[in-house]
């Protein structure tokens, strides 16, 4: 029975690693268990784990929440948690106090009420999870989602009015005479 199951796993791994660099590492192996072990040794061995831990630590150093539209509080805490998880997986977990210290120190939003809430949270919350829940509520209250401004429209989006400066542009592959070219150039002059 093991042989049948092992073959099923091997087939799955082959399928998932087809045309990727990973297939090299178990090309000659005929057992699913051995194939997965080979992948784990290569992609999750001591060197790789060291690299991942360094990456996680670097992420913890550089990550901040400053309320920019591109990096929301949700993304910030998810990244923090992700880094904690990696360190935990490779047997270097952080103490809860250390997690909390990182969370609060890296909340560098200048909003006065937010700053005040961080201080309150520091005294109230004893775990990272509870602090995140508290701050998420604060963020939702202080910075409600605002719709992003629309991006500038290009000439290609002007499908309804298919005319520019008096020139028909509904078919851009047609022949434009010199006067039309001149008008089109004039229309682009201000850009």
């Amino acid at each position, binding site marked *: 029975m093991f042989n049948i199951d092992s073959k099923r796993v091997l087939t*799955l791994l082959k399928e998932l690693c087809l045309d990727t660099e990973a297939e090299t590492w178990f090309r000659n192996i005929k057992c699913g*268990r051995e194939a*997965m072990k080979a992948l784990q040794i290569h992609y999750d061995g001591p060197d*790789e784990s060291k690299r991942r831990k360094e990456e996680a630590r670097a992420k913890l150093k550089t990550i901040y929440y400053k309320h920019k539209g591109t990096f929301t509080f949700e993304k910030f805490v998810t990244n923090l948690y992700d880094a904690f998880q990696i360190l935990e997986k490779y047997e270097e977990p952080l103490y809860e106090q250390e997690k909390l210290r990182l969370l609060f120190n890296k909340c560098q939003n200048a909003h006065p009420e937010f700053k005040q809430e961080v201080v309150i949270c520091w005294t109230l919350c004893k775990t990272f999870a509870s602090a995140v829940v508290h701050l998420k509520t604060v963020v939702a209250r202080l910075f409600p989602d605002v719709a992003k401004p629309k991006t500038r429209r290009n000439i290609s989006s002007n499908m309804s009015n298919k005319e520019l400066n008096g020139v028909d542009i509904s078919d851009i592959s047609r022949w434009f005479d010199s006067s039309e070219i001149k008008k089109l150039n004039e229309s682009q002059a201000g850009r």
Partner: protein
Amino acid sequence: MNIQPPPARAVPAAAVAAPLFAQWEIEANILNLQGEHRLLHQLLREFHSFSRDQCAKLREEGYSSLSDLINWKFQEIRSLLKDLSNRPSNRGGQRFGDRKIKELQALRWFITDRSRRGLTFDFDLYKAEATQYISFAEIDSEIDKDEAADKPEKFKYASWNKWEESVCIYLDSVISKNGAPLSYVIRKDLDVEIEWESLDRKTQQIYTAP
């Protein structure tokens, strides 16, 4: 599976009729049933009140010991016993009521579950919670029909941790030939200090499979 049946007593022919022995014991002695065979006979006759003919029919069909019940499929039990019930007695028929079918399914579920989790057959535990196992057997038969999780994405070096986890989740949702989750094939070594009893059912199954 380490099954420890009650010791068989050597009974002199004169003592067979003595009230010292229960009916199932007398029958087991006459049939010379030992070990798991004797235990199954006791469970069916004494605890579930199967008739002597019903027990004989099960033995005739090849289910004479506890080990024979392991991996017997839920639906197959009903279909076999229904088939036997519908047959006339002169053509090997034997009636099994719905309750008896459910009790046998529950017993099969309990024995299979203990065997897949590397646990010994606990006679007292079974007796104490026998009714519950009827529901467990039914629920498990429904779970077996559930579809597997979505297949993992193609391998990506940058997201090894997530990819490995997705492979484990997928294989966890696929049942292997021996009834354990297919993820047993790629299991990692278990911490030696961990207590077996503290592990959840799925983990026990994964680490019991070969």
